[in-house]
Structure formats: structure tokens, C-alpha cells
């Protein structure tokens, strides 16, 4: 097999894996949009906040230490413990549920029946607030996240492809874990929304708020539920991306990688987020491989959007999005 073809296959395979990482972020957007029609601008910041909280708990960091020390003249920094990863993850998930309750009580409750643009603007405010809160709580320094996820080249894939094709492919162990986790998340979310009472209620709210309210479904409970789930998904995305780069404030920018995925896959489809991620991931990596060197490289950031726009020309609602027809 020609070397170029092998290299292209490797780039494509890694693109699929990168796409799964984008999908993990996109899933949070889809969940909230599907249930409430809100485009949650704060989803990237939720991932950052969740990851900061996880590392903070794991390392036994005193939240708001800088503020407390400045006000009371103390020297508090750490509690002196290091929590097992699983306990820290559970606690961080708990904080995301609390955050969902606070968001519902102090933001969303007051905006019921407001136009979508108002809700969108509220999420922009939330994004900046949460970024500042995360800074004050945990500090802006870079933090190492270690929850025991494997990283580095997968030796099995390398040796199998090496013996079969004469060139050992690179696949990152972390990307493999991310793919498995994403698959489990999608299966769990699909089962939850199809077969649980709360899941059906969630779909009812997504279809029509007023009708759902009229049959006794609590809109407030559903919003807390969906923001909690989105918070958990953000935690998972934060763990995967944070393991790669450390936890630092540019983590919130991973949302930019999710936007073309949403445009392509549709804002209302969980499978769409996954398929969209795969197409974007593979498309951008192959474009960078074939065309990048001819035009100076670094094409991935903009090409993902070009690809998404191309799809939109033919399917404005995205590949899996619901076609909205408003009758006059």
C-alpha cells in the first residue's frame, strides 16, 4: 500500500477519535437545547468549571482560599488530603447538580416564556459569571488532572497495523477511552429519554412547554434535571480534555470545536452530535493532511466551519435535526 494512503488512513482514524472528543462537548449543548430550546453559551465554561472543581476536590484545595486569606489574613491553601479520583468525580458531579438547581432558581425561573434570545443572553452572562467564580474558587493557575486515564500510543494498534500494513498507526489511549465513554453516554441518555418516566417528561417538555405543564409535568424539575445531566456531560468532557492539556482557562474554548458539530449534526439529536463529531473530526484531519501543506497549514479551526456550512446548504436543520415548519 502506498505510504500516502497509509498516512491518510492514520489521519482519518485519528480524526474520528478527535471527533468523539468534540462530540462530548456537543452533547451538553444538545441536551439543553432539546429540552428547553436554549442555546447554552456557557457549556464550554461548564466543562471548565466542572474540571476545576474536580481537581480542587481531588487535591484537597480550599475553595476561595485567596479571598479568605486576603480578608482574614490567614494562610489557607490545602486541607492536606488527596481524594481518590472516583470520590472526587462523585463530589464534582454533586456540585454540578447544585449548580443546576441554582441556575434554575435564580436565572431560568425568572425567564419562563421569554423569547429564546433572552435565554441565550442569560447563558452568556452565566458563562462569564462561572468563569469568574471558577477563578475565585480555585485560582487561575494551570492544574494537572490525573484520574488514572491511560495516555500515549496504543501499542496493540501500532503492532497490529504494523504487521498487517507495514506501518504502525498512532492511536492515543485517551482517545480510545473517550470513544468508549461517549458510546456509553449516548446509550445511557437514549435509554433514559426513551424508557424512563423522567425521560419521557423531558421529551414532552421539549415538544411543547405549555402542553407539558397542562398534564402536570413540573417544568422547573425538568430544567434542573436537564442542566444536571448537561453538567455531568460537561464534567466528562472536562476530564477528557483536561487530562490532555491540564485544567486551565482555555478549556472553555473547546466549545468552539463543538459548534460546527452542532451545525452539522443538528441541535436536537444526540446521535447527530456523535455523527457530526465524527464527520467534522475526520474531515478536518484529512483536509489538513491533503490540502494543509499546500496552503500553509493550521486549517482545522476554520475548515470545520466550512464543512458544517456546506452541509447546511443542503440540510439547514443539520443531518439529524428536526425540520421546523411554522404554519401561518
Amino acid at each position: 500500500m502506498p505510504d500516502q494512503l497509509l498516512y491518510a488512513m492514520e489521519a482519518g482514524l485519528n480524526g474520528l477519535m478527535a471527533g468523539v472528543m468534540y462530540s462530548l462537548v456537543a452533547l451538553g449543548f444538545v441536551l439543553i437545547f432539546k429540552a428547553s430550546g436554549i442555546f447554552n453559551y456557557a457549556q464550554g465554561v461548564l466543562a471548565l468549571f466542572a474540571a476545576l472543581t474536580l481537581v480542587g476536590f481531588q487535591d484537597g484545595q480550599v475553595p476561595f482560599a485567596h479571598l479568605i486569606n486576603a480578608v482574614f489574613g490567614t494562610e489557607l491553601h490545602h486541607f492536606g488530603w488527596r481524594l481518590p479520583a472516583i470520590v472526587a468525580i462523585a463530589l464534582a458531579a454533586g456540585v454540578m447538580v447544585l449548580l443546576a438547581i441554582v441556575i434554575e432558581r435564580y436565572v431560568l425561573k425568572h425567564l419562563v416564556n421569554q423569547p429564546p434570545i433572552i435565554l441565550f443572553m442569560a447563558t452568556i452572562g452565566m458563562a462569564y459569571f462561572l468563569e469568574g467564580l471558577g477563578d475565585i474558587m480555585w485560582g487561575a493557575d494551570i492544574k494537572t488532572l490525573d484520574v488514572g486515564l491511560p495516555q500515549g500510543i496504543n501499542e496493540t494498534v501500532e503492532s497490529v497495523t504494523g504487521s498487517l500494513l507495514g506501518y504502525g498507526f498512532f492511536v492515543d489511549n485517551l482517545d480510545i477511552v473517550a470513544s468508549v465513554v461517549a458510546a456509553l453516554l449516548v446509550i445511557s441518555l437514549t435509554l433514559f429519554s426513551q424508557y424512563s418516566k423522567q425521560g419521557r417528561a423531558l421529551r414532552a417538555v421539549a415538544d411543547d412547554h405549555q402542553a407539558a405543564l397542562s398534564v402536570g409535568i413540573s417544568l422547573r424539575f425538568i430544567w434542573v434535571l436537564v442542566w444536571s445531566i448537561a453538567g455531568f456531560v460537561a464534567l466528562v468532557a472536562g476530564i477528557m480534555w483536561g487530562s490532555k492539556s491540564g485544567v486551565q482557562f482555555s478549556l472553555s474554548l473547546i466549545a468552539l470545536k463543538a459548534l460546527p458539530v452542532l451545525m452539522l449534526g443538528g441541535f436536537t439529536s444526540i446521535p447527530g452530535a456523535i455523527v457530526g463529531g465524527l464527520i467534522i473530526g475526520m474531515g478536518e484531519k484529512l483536509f489538513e493532511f491533503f490540502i494543509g501543506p499546500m496552503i500553509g497549514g493550521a486549517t482545522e479551526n476554520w475548515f470545520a466551519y466550512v464543512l458544517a456550512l456546506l452541509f447546511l446548504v443542503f440540510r439547514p436543520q443539520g443531518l439529524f435535526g428536526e425540520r421546523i415548519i411554522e404554519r401561518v
Partner: protein
Amino acid sequence: MRKTLTALALALAAATPAMAELVVPNLSYRTGPYAPGGIPYADGFNDYFTLLNERDGGIGGEKVVTPECETAYNTEKGVECYEATKGSGALVYNPLSTGITYQLIPKVSADKIPLYTPGYGRTSAANGKVFEWVFNYPANYWDAASVAIKYLLDQNGGDLNGKKIALVYHNSAYGKEPIRTLTELSKKHGYTLIEIPVDHPGQEQKSQWLQIRRDKPDYVLMWGWGVMNAVAIQEAANIKYPMENFIGVWWSGSENDVLPAGDGANGYKSLAMHGTGMDYPVYADLKQYVYDAGKASGAGDQVGSVLYSRGMYAALVISEAIRKAQELAGTSAINAVQLRDGFEQLEITQERMTELGLPNFGQAFKASCEDHGGPGAALIQQWDAAAKKWSLITDFIAPDDEVLVPLVMEDSAAFAAENNIAERCN
């Protein structure tokens, strides 16, 4: 009553200048994606001036104030900060951003305020004949590129012929700075340069490192900043690239860059333009007058880190330039124009560095009207992941001025022609 009020107003008027005589705005970034780099630099910068104020009563009897303005490493905000603070009697700016520097160069030239950009900014500003108000000693990007190549020459018995060197760079004005030098040096030394850009912020670099895995360059140089550094080092470890062959510029050589990769970062190298760590006498004074007195900047948790040391070094050079300007002007209450003279006639010897409690921390240099760039030498440091510590593995290496000086002259001449600047110092 009227007399009392007049006396009070006069007393206030007399007291105010003494309280804020030397204004050195700190255009910092403590928020946003680049905050992990901006915070320690800003803390080191502030703490050094606090030390001078608390221990010596300021410089020449004048206290130094460092009003902070948050730029978030954003060029527009940086310019806003400049405009907002320049009226306060600002003596000098040090924005820690090449993008902001490029925007400020015409502004400081019009406003006659020095711009000090150690190790960053526009490289050809080293030519004082054209860039009257900009100073970038002790070293600049082109010096860094040349020092890296000289180090590699040393590692290869003086011969890089046929070698492949990849440059992984932040796809911005900053990241592109060394390309011209590395291209020129490739003609001289016969290596092949592979350019690999990474878009802001650099969170995803799979394509770039797959290319490196395929191309198998003998060495990888990196011009990164922020999260790009940490991700690149992690990806290099993932593809099992030999870390001892991976060298970053000094902006890719802080603890922030290597710690996230854990043991995988062991052996990674970077350039350094000063020493690091707390094994310097100045830290005893800092402890006594700043840290223990509760006057440390920020959370006080960045002390001794690479970027804290760099912020401190920038403050040291500025304070010495102020001292020189006071000496030249015969007054302690200098203005920005007088400080420009101080920068131009500044000489920092090793004896002076020892007096300041930082022996062998930085290179000795002497500026002049023509030379705003300094000697340009740099060290190489290597990361020990087990000890979580940088170790210097070379002495200062001088850059290849035979190649660099013509490049600086060419670039600055082009700038002078574009902006109708007549050469000075003649």
C-alpha cells in the same frame, strides 16, 4: 475656615506627587486562556517594585506605583489599557504580548513613552537608530532562534547538514517571528526547516504531531504560549518523540508547560534568558519585606517560578533604567523622555547583579543609542520530571550576529521607510 481649606488643599497637592511619583503601569493578564502565564509574571513584576519601596523607600527616594490593567492577552484591550493609563504620568510599558507591542509601537513613538519588551515583541526594535522608544534587551526572538541552532550545532559536532528541524509555532505574529531567522540559518548550515503552525489556542494538535511522527525530524523547536505548550509536550510524549531533541523558546519553558505531562515531559529542554529558582540572596529581602509582611502580589504562590523570575527581571531592568535616568537628569522625579535616556545609557554588570542580590541571574549588557537589543545570549535548561525542577545545562550561548545583524538592519530599514522615520544616533 477658608484658610484651613486652602492649607488642606496645598498639603494634599504637595503630598500627591510624592505618593505616585514613578508610575510604571502593569499591563497584566490574570484572566482568560493565557492567565497561567500572565499571573506569575505580573506577581514577580509587582513584588520587585514592592521590595524597592519597602526596603529602600523607592528609587532615589521616589516610590514606584504599578497600577494594573487587565488585558486578557487581548490586543484591543491592551491598547485600551495603554490609552487609559498613559495620562497618569506613565514612564514605561511592558505589555507581555507581541500583538499588543506591535500596536503600541506607533503610539509610544508619538507619545514619547518607552516600551520595554524583554524577550518578546518586534525583534528589529533592537535597532535604536529606527526604534527610538522601544527596547528589547537582553535578548529577542531572533537571538533565541540563533542560540537554539548554535546549541544544536554544538550537539552535532558543528554540522547540521542534512538534518531536519521542525518548528512548531503559535500561528500568530509572535509564533512567526523566528521563521525568517531559521530560514536564513538553514541556508548557512544546510538543515531542512519544516514549518508546522498551530492555531490559537492549541488545545488540539493531533495533525501536527502525526506529521512529526511521519516526517521524523531530528529536532523540534517550539514557539508556543499558553495551553499550546502543555498540549505539544503531551503529544510529543504520546508519539514517543525523544524529549531531549525537543527545545522550546523561553516562552515555552515554564513549569506550567511541563507539569501537566507528568513524567512524559522528562528531558524536555527550553531556552532561558535568566536564572530561575530561589537560590538568590534577593529572596531573603523579598521574604522579609514583601512575603512575610503580607504585601506579596496575587496569591503569593508563584514565587521562584520561571515566569515569576522573568517578571522580576523585567522590573529589575526598568528600576535600573529609572536609577540611570535619575542620575542623568539630576532629579528623582523623572519623566518618560528622561527615562528613555536612562534606558539608552543603561549598563548592567555582573557586579551590579550581585549587589542587587541576583548574581549570575542574567547576562551583563550595555545599551546605547544604536543598540536597544543587548547581547542576545541565552541558556538552555532541561526539565527533571522527578524533581519537578529546571536545571541549567549550558552557560550563556551568544547568537550568530553575522546572520542576525543584517536581518535586523533590513527589517528596521523597511519599517523606517514605511513610516518615514529618519535614522538617529548619527
